């Protein structure tokens, strides 16, 4: 149990008739940076709110550091830094006063780090929180999540609202936290945001996990987009029969396809004709991510039954 920080098993959360989580399984290991990817409405924020004991599961269970969030209570939350997906700041206090308030809710932990972090993110602590721009509010959110150096960071869409420079600074903060041994669980609806820092990624859709893999594994699976132009129109059907070749499309003399694995078979097939030009480029992980969303209806449904 000691090397897993977050575990969920068959986690179900219903609001009235709508089912936000539909048997979600997750395992986040100690010390890793874990990306939690899914489209809007997939259940990312619901999962995160269960981990923080804002929501209680309808069925299944979630454990953080080996205890359920409800049983862990304040002592468990003391070990967590949380950045909400839609951070709302209000009240008649300055950004500095707000951060000091949040530190005092933690018994003063993190208070000493406020000034340093504010300087690093160029946040004016004297400004009233309600008057802050979205980006500046997000800075307050980031600072309060990291200031007490928690063992676990739960970050819901952390980079939204931050400009590229600050996104870079934020990623540096995540790497530092990871380097001192903290576990980072961060959600996003775009893979690109997490692929540079994440060790592993889970893709969720409609409240279930549809894919879990390392970022390198995902890249390998993403494959290449191959384009071949022939002197004579080739036989597309025989190309489609080749192992690892998908999405074959023939447009006059040009054949395009998606290739996974070694290109050997495809090249031998192409060499039967006269190849005028060719190209092969690595696919964007974003494309794969979209594949996973789309294919879930086909493959995911079975996996889901097995999981239960």
């Amino acid at each position: 149990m000691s090397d897993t920080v977050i575990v969920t098993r068959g986690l179900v959360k219903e609001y009235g008739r709508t089912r936000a989580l539909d048997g979600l399984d997750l395992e986040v290991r100690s010390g890793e940076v874990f990306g939690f990817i899914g489209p809007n409405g997939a259940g990312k924020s619901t999962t995160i709110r269960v981990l923080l004991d804002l929501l209680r599961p309808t069925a299944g269970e979630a454990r953080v550091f080996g205890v359920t969030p409800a049983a862990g209570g304040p002592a468990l939350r003391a070990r967590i830094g949380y950045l909400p997906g839609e951070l709302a700041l209000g009240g008649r206090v300055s950004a500095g006063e707000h951060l000091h308030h949040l530190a005092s809710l933690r018994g003063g932990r993190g208070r000493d780090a406020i000034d340093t972090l504010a300087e690093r993110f160029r946040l004016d602590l004297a400004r009233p929180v309600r008057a802050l721009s979205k980006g500046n509010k997000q800075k307050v959110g980031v600072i309060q999540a990291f200031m007490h150096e928690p063992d676990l960071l739960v970050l819901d869409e952390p980079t939204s609202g931050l400009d590229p420079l600050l996104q870079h600074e934020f990623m540096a903060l995540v790497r530092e936290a990871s380097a001192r041994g903290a576990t980072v669980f961060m959600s996003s609806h775009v893979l690109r945001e997490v692929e540079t820092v994440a060790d592993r990624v889970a893709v969720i859709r409609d409240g279930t996990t549809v894919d879990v893999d390392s970022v390198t594994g995902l890249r390998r699976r993403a494959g290449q987009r191959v384009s071949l132009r022939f002197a004579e129109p080739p036989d597309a059907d025989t190309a489609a029969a080749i192992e690892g070749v998908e999405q074959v499309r023939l447009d006059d003399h040009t054949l395009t396809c998606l290739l996974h694995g070694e290109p050997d078979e495809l090249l031998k097939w192409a060499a039967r004709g006269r190849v005028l030009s060719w190209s092969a480029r690595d696919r964007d992980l974003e494309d794969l991510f979209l594949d996973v969303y789309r294919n879930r209806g086909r493959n995911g449904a079975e996996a889901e039954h097995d999981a239960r």
Partner: protein
Amino acid sequence: MRAEGAASFARVWADHRRGLPGWGAALAGITLMYLAFWPMMGADMQAMLDGLPEALIRALGYDRIGTAAGYLEAVIYGLLGPVLLLVYGIGLGGRVIAGQEEDGTLELDLAAPVGRARLYWQRLAAVWTLITALVAITTLAVLVSGPLFGLGVPTVNVLAASLAMWLLVGGFTTIALAVGAATGRRGIGVAAAAGLATLAYVFRSVADAVGVDVLATLSPFAWMLASEPLVNGFDAFGAAKLGLLSVVAAPLGAWRFARRDLMV
């Protein structure tokens, strides 16, 4: 585990202390202004009352308006004081948990290492201290302007009436906070408290006008004023019933708040 002290309590004050001077000035100003009219009452007032129907006079509590205690009750303790304080208290009670949960500004507090019960009781306590400050200001205004305009109501009786008003306002404020915290909806908390307070006021007025004792028995406004604290002083039974509003509502709200889903 390290205790986080009174951070939740302090935060409510930090957010709302700026409203205090304005409300305090309004309550003190209105009290002063109405009590300044007292010396000018007399013949004119009696002439006006003679033209009004008997039942209406009793419903408005004007039947004893010719006496200093009756006048003070009719304008301040029976009407403007509680009404203004209830507007303030119910609004605040609905705001500090349910309202802030709804607009999301409480999320980081709820995700902090603070138990829900602790957050609830501290916020409730802070709201009570804010109300206490305003009741104290109103009371002070009465005590200062009474001798100034020759009202001559004994200080103990003013304090007794203020205590009852404090318990009444605190009770409905607690209901707003508790129902809001139980449901997560500010509107429900405010509507419940404001609805009950209005009903309580109407019940007492009707009871006074047509003498239906059942309605008076059910009305917290009657619990506060039926014993005429400005004439007879402290009424322990009435105070106990008023206190019961909070004593019943507060734990029920806390119980439900600790068990339900938040931020949905």
